[in-house]
């Protein structure tokens, strides 16, 4: 996990990055569809769209969530969303579903800044058609 320090608006925020394989399928029965390669994960089940999620541990409120991914083409386009919850698992912030800005090339999906309530949780989920790749998640 890479740790970088970014200063913004007078406050210092820690940015962390996880490889794709740090997550898990939304449905445990979908594990067989995901292959690992150099830390990236790929949906290898033909003609399917599988949801893959990753918990993002936080100790502060504001986080800019970015997903590095590859969508082969418009019919195989990955879409991701970041969600924050309070400590009772009630959804408090949602980034909205966003896709890669380019196809057939590594690109970054910027999910914007998500605010996490104190002692809340943050996670990201991606809808992955077959052959799409999820490389890293930064927050």
């Amino acid at each position, binding site marked *: 996990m890479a740790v970088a320090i970014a200063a*913004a*608006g*007078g*406050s210092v925020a820690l940015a962390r990055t996880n490889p794709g394989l740090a997550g898990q399928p*939304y449905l445990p029965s979908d594990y067989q569809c995901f292959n690992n390669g150099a830390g990236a994960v790929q949906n290898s089940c033909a003609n399917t769209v599988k*949801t893959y*999620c990753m918990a993002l541990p936080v*100790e*502060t*409120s*504001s986080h800019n969530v970015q997903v590095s991914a590859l969508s082969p083409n418009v019919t195989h386009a990955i*879409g991701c*969303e970041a*969600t924050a919850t*309070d400590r009772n698992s*009630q*959804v*408090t*912030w*949602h*980034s*909205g*579903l966003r896709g890669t800005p380019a196809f057939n090339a590594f690109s970054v999906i910027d999910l*914007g*800044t998500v*605010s*996490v*309530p*104190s*002692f*809340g949780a943050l996670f990201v*989920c991606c*809808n992955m058609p077959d052959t799409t790749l999820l490389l890293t998640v930064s927050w």
Partner: protein
Amino acid sequence: MFRKMSWVLAASLVVIAVTIYQRQEVEIARLQRDKARIEVQDNDLQTAAAASRGPVRYTGPTAELPPPLVQPRPPVDRLPDGDDDRSVDVERSSTARWEAEARASQVAVEDGFAAEVVDPAWAPGVAGDLRARLGAIVVPPSSSLGDVECRRSICRVEMVARDHESMKRFMDKAFGVGGGAAWTGSMMAEYQPPDRDGATLVVLYLGRDGTAFPRPAS
């Protein structure tokens, strides 16, 4: 003749027995000396081992040693008075900062919505569409839809849930993982404390596609 031979035989046996006894005495004495020597060596080894467990001292020029990367923390029983209190203060302070940041983000969105003017080309149509979509998700009487108001880039929606389960069901269907049915843009939810009947008012702020929620001024 026979008696004389008997005496000779008996004397020989006595001599042999005495000789054997003397040899055994010598052997016992030798074994005792060996035992004493081994005990002395064992004591020496234990003393040396105890000495080697002590701190290894660097005897070279200390001025050339680089400073340690991580300063060793003093043992807990040597912490000065008040140090424990300070760590608790740091924890409280970071929690308070986290809460303040989260609240500032909420206020920025609330104020942003309040400051917006209505975009007549966008707001009425989206508000009607939202009312229809969210209206299809609420399940009266356990949940009900209140005001739905859109302005330029943010919509504000009120929803009342009679219990935790109905609220969770509504949020999952509207904004759940994998893309909820109600909104594709960003969303912020504020939960009011339950009233006397256990009903909870949820205020939702929904951001227009392609726009970001206002952020607190730095």
